[in-house]
């Protein structure tokens, strides 16, 4: 008897694939030269040290090899990527002032509505520059700064200079160097000591231009005892030419502070998503990563937590969904660099229609980091046998006073589980839907309600036969 299988449909990309005409006020030529870097810097009217930083990064970029491990990057041709495109507008603080076509794009993505209903502040980037930034007055009154990186560089130059690319130096890897050279846009958040922000801030990055790159820089500083939830959304319409995203996210979590960083990444399938994210956490601080990777052609994304203060904590919850033509190489890195630090990693991946999901993780415990605890759990579900799913968690332990547990599982959802639910009076269809939703639930439950609903809608389940 032929066994029927239940399929999970592709993500409905309808709203993400709406293209606007490619209009711009200014753009650089394709490729990467010293002249182009100088142009970007001049266009942005930057201080000298930033221009020099860019030039130094370019030099590092030219001297670094393309990584040979992980995903195949041979389809990426930097010489044909436009690194800087200024959209035909300045940054606005009201949606009414944002040009109609750009505004409609964000309307369709639900950003202004979410801002009215559930966010404390919103930033929206279109191609290389931020076109909209707004924050509730009461947050400004508490001393919170939430603005685009360009404004931050002008108004808070000292702070930016102190933190910018200190956590992810340009010589970290080739794409960090590229970022250092051509970065543009992104958000800057500063939460003063003791201030607790209960409603999230969100920045949304939209790349509309074909054959372009987006290199936004996000810098968040959460001072002692403060608290913040930051949401990052990404999408782009589908083009025939390859696009590149090489952003940087640097998060500084001070003593007793808490930062939750949520990402729903839904790039189109012509995108190389080579993003670098890193957090450093001081004494008793907490970093929580929520990471959903659905889009892009190729992703190499491993958010890293450096627990440098005693009692610091990190939590990573991630879901990766690789469909046809996608190679999503994702995971997380945790470095326990101080005593009594704890970390939890919970990763789920789905692959279907020839998609390739790869979990790649690192857990490192330093010599002096005694009394650490860590649990790592990875689960993968393959929905057919033309897909691929690999798991490679590296564990490096350099002292004995630790408690480490790791487990990984791959497989189909058991017939027993479905049978059990059916024996409780639940129909077969419902039982399967429950199980698949249950598989992704650890991430949906961590999101604000609107996003959870959105995510559930993204994953439509076509129910027929067995799962897996």
């Amino acid at each position, binding site marked *: 008897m032929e066994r029927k299988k239940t399929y999970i449909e592709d993500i409905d990309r309808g709203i993400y694939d709406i293209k606007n005409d490619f209009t711009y006020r200014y753009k650089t030529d394709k490729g990467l030269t010293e002249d182009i870097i100088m142009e970007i810097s001049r266009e942005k009217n930057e201080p000298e040290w930033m221009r020099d930083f860019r030039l130094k990064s370019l030099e590092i970029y030219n001297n670094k090899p393309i990584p040979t491990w992980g995903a195949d990057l041979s389809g990426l041709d930097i010489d044909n990527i436009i690194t800087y495109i200024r959209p035909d507008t300045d940054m606005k603080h009201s949606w009414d002032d944002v040009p109609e076509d750009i505004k409609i794009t964000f309307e369709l993505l639900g950003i202004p509505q979410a801002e009215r209903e559930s966010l404390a502040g919103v930033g929206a980037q279109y191609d290389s520059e931020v076109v909209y930034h707004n924050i509730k007055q009461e947050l400004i009154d508490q001393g919170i700064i939430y603005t685009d990186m360009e404004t931050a560089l002008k108004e808070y130059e000292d702070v930016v200079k102190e933190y910018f690319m200190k956590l992810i130096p340009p010589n970290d890897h080739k794409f960090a160097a590229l970022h250092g050279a051509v970065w543009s846009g992104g958000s800057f958040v500063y939460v003063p000591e003791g201030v607790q922000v209960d409603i999230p801030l969100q920045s949304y990055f939209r790349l509309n231009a074909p054959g372009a790159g987006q290199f936004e820089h996000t810098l968040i500083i959460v001072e002692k005892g403060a608290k913040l939830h930051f949401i990052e959304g990404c999408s782009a319409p589908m083009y025939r030419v390859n696009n590149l995203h090489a952003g940087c996210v640097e998060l500084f979590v001070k003593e007793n502070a808490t930062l939750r960083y949520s990402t729903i990444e839904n790039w189109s399938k012509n995108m190389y998503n080579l993003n670098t994210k890193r957090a450093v956490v001081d004494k008793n601080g907490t970093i929580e990563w929520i990471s959903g990777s659905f889009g892009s052609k190729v992703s190499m994304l491993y958010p890293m937590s450096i627990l440098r203060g005693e009692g610091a904590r990190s939590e990573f919850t991630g879901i990766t969904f690789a469909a046809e033509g996608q190679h999503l190489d994702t995971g997380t890195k945790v470095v326990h660099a101080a005593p009594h630090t704890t970390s939890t990693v919970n990763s789920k991946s789905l692959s279907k229609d020839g998609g390739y999901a790869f979990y790649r993780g690192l857990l490192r415990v330093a010599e002096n980091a005694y009394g650490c605890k860590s649990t790592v759990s990875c689960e993968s579900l393959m929905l057919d046998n033309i897909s*691929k799913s690999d798991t490679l968690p590296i564990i490096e332990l350099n002292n004995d006073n630790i408690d*480490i547990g790791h487990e990984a599982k791959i497989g189909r959802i058991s017939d027993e589980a479905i049978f059990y639910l059916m024996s409780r009076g639940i129909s077969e269809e419902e039982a399967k839907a429950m199980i698949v939703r249950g598989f992704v639930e650890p991430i949906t439950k961590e999101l604000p309600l609107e996003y959870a609903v959105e995510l559930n809608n993204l994953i439509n389940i076509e129910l027929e036969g067995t799962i897996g």
Partner: protein
Amino acid sequence: MLWKRIGLKDFEFPKVHDYKKDYIKIEGKFPKEVKINRISESENKYFDIEFSGVGDKFTSFAKKYYNAGIQLRLPRNTKIVEPVKLEFHMDENNPTLVDKNLIIAEEGSEVNIIMDYYSNEKIETLHNGLTVIYAKENATVNIIKIQRLGDSSQSFDSNIAYVEGNGKVNWISVELGSYISGSNYRTYLDGEASGSNLSSIYLGDGIRKMDLEYTMIHKGPRSISNIETKGVLKDNSKKVFRGNLDFKRGSRHSKGVEEEYVILLDPTVKSDSIPALLCDEDDVEGEHAASAGQIDENKLFYLMSRGLDERESKKLVVEASFRPIIDRIPYKYLQEIIFDEIERRLIDA
């Protein structure tokens, strides 16, 4: 490069002299058809395989410059209960051993093999081995490898098995010696319902560096594999554990489990674990688990409250962790050798 984690960058082989000692020990009486001989050129075709083992350099060296080893062929349906024992006792006159071994178990046959490598503490010895096993349909090969060379020795060992339908290859690996030890076991589960278990223990003490890699490649449907490893690290030892479960397309209904548990006894140890789960087939079950930690303080406290000193208590807890694996060795004398060696390294050292 496999060796970067334990810092072995370059390696030069010494000149290989004849290995003059007798190493094939057979106590039982085997049927005439069972052929056990020293390895010879005539079997070269069986070594014409793609297998890097601990490193291409080491396997190609063993293929060419071997000075010991056996070729063993079991005819159809021949089952021998008494073990085939290979004892490699290295000494001043035989400090270099390059053993190349071939085991062919024809349909329905069964064999037990023990390979024991040891040397005196002070002598600098080098062991580089290559063992190739072919288990045909319904054949079973049980093989126990014990590496307890002295602390001035280096040991490199590459093992590979091809298992046909309903065949079984069961490995037991005991790693107790040498200051550098590389061990590689790769099993191809080619046939339907083929199976392989790999049970291993390792003990790191002094400055020992170990790189252990165990790989199960599922090709046949309904194939089953199980890797279970228990380790203990003390002093300045370092180990790298690489466990790979690889489900190839077509290996439907297969199941693979991999587990590593390590007890860390000193703040100066280093322990890397890289368990990989590779999957090209949806209808399989794969699981890996790794855990690491100190000895349970409650257990230690209990034992000490009964009048045992700390060293002895630790030894008991370590032995208790190793015991489920050692109990799978069906030879009392070997179990004793292993426990004595563990005791010597934990208490006397």
